[in-house]
């Protein structure tokens, strides 16, 4: 503060008057848009690779990692199988409660896997013991499991996830990436054709059920996906 009273105020007034004529900092938003830095992480969009196809592999890792479970998806995975992981939009309300439970640390009955057959876990425990519960040796664990059970039962995958601490979605992603790993028991030659038709029938039935459940505005989407399947 200077000795002369009022000098500071006068200097401040001069400064604001100088700024009055200076170029402005405002960006006129809808006309002018700032460049987003390449590393910006706030983009909500699916990325495409250099061939113009979607990079998303429907691995559900994002959906599983999303803390408030706002990410949802339905689609066709790398093996051409149709998934709707979390269920129809009508059940969003239930799922909200579910996720609240999950975040509070309490166990949640998982509707999605309720119908899968249980397995006898002793053999799997032995395998996991052999690989030291190490999630970085996941492929070896999965190989050994398939050798033991003949395929990868969902219950086994969930147990592996529980014991090693790896996300289920990551294990599922690993398993679905390798061609030699399978989620269903191998069929004999004559049986294979029957299984294939049965599976197709099951899928058609599932899609029909889905169609019915999504009646109304979303009916067309279900039909379109059914058409693209066949």
């Amino acid at each position, binding site marked *: 503060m200077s000795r002369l009273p009022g000098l*500071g105020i006068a*200097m401040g007034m001069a400064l604001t008057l100088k700024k009055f004529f200076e170029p402005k900092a405002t960006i006129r938003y809808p006309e002018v848009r700032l460049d987003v*830095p390449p*590393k*910006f992480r706030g983009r909500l969009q699916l990325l495409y690779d250099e061939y113009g196809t979607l990079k998303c592999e429907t691995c559900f890792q994002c959906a599983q990692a999303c803390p408030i479970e706002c990410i949802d998806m339905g689609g066709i995975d790398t093996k051409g199988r149709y998934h709707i992981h979390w269920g129809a939009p009508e059940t969003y309300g239930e799922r909200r409660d579910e996720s609240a439970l999950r975040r509070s640390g309490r166990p949640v009955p998982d509707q999605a896997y309720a119908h899968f057959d249980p397995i006898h876990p002793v053999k799997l425990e032995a395998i996991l013991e052999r690989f030291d519960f190490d*999630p970085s040796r996941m492929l070896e664990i999965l190989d050994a499991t398939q050798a033991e059970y003949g395929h990868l039962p969902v219950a086994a995958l969930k147990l592996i996830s529980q014991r090693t601490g790896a996300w289920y979605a990551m294990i599922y992603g690993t398993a679905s990436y390798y061609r030699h790993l399978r989620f269903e028991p191998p069929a004999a030659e004559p049986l294979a054709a029957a299984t294939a038709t049965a599976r197709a029938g099951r899928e058609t039935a599932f899609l029909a059920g889905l169609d019915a459940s999504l009646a109304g505005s979303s009916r067309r989407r279900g039909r379109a996906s059914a058409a693209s399947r066949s």
Partner: protein
Amino acid sequence: MTAAPPHGQREAPSDDPRVQLDQDAGVFEPVPPYPPRTEREAEFYTLGDGEMFINMGPQHPSTHGVLRIVLKLEGEVVVDLDPVLGYLHRGVEKLCENADYHHSIAYLDPLEYISSLFCEWPGVLAFEKLLDVQVPRRAEYIRVLSTELNRILSHSLFMGWMALDLGGLTPILWSFIERDEIAEMLAALTGQRLLYNYLRIGGVNGDINHEFMSRLGDWMSRATNQIENNLGLLNQNEIFVRRMRGLGKLDKETAFRMAVTGPNLRATGVPLDFRRAHPYSVFPELEFDIPTRDEGDCLARYLVRMDEIKQSLRIIDQCIHKMPDGPVMAKLPRLLRPRPGRAYAAVEGPRGQYAAYVVSDGTDQPFRMRIHDPSFVHLQSVGVLMPGHLIADAMAVMASLDPIMGGVDK
């Protein structure tokens, strides 16, 4: 089951809008509806002669978020006050205890949304101590560089708020220009403008890139001038200086008793800076001064912060020149399971000491996570500083302590 009301006097449903219109909307009383729980509460909520309560907040233009203070006034003089906290409580500590070590960093971010990197840092440091990780030197330099930028951001916003709480309209917008440039810079570096989530256990998320460096160089070339220019509006202004000088005096003993840290402590003449007192990261290799003032009033707190901006610019300059080559992340497994134990880490933030205390039980989630936030600690000295001042000065004292309610309520 309540008895059914007699015929013709059926109780109207309480959610009927017509009923709500007919009812008296009611007048909000600051006195709590329950009987006083402590002696202090009973004493506070009995009015003396000529006194009145005024309920300041949670929605008030200058309570820096959702702080609510019940002021007991005599005329315009604050006689006593009762801060009511918890309007922004999110249970961050509990959220961290239910998340993976990596995930809890993201929960630490929004604690103090002005200086997010400083909230991440103590957590990350404590996790690294638990895991016994050696952080690459380049990563350490990047951490110092980005956090010092964040410190400048926080202090320049403080200048604007301080002036706004005293009624000046212009400085807040000038400091927002400063802030926006730094935010864009940090967005180029970290990928986000506000909640960076940039520090990782064992390093940082991504090396510095060309865009960040070009923006930083552009800004550094004119930052000193620009900040000096902005300060000229307030530092010389008689009205501002007369209002701030001698207001809210905090002496050394009270400051120590109140566990005040950071610029608020340094304004009382104690050169305590955790970057020097308990050196962490690469601060022993960097040259900078610790600005102090002896007055301990609002003006001293303001000036100490403005001096710190200049020191931060010095540190950034040195970081750019001394930064070695190398990796920015230590080799770490995806799934972290530290040995059972406990760790404590503290850093010097723009508001004071940010600290985290973590207990591990050997699983992949922290068993207990305790976050120490300077805003909360500084807010309690409001009870010493405000009484005896006018309402306008109470706001100035609040602003000079610079609390962020996100950190206070956790």
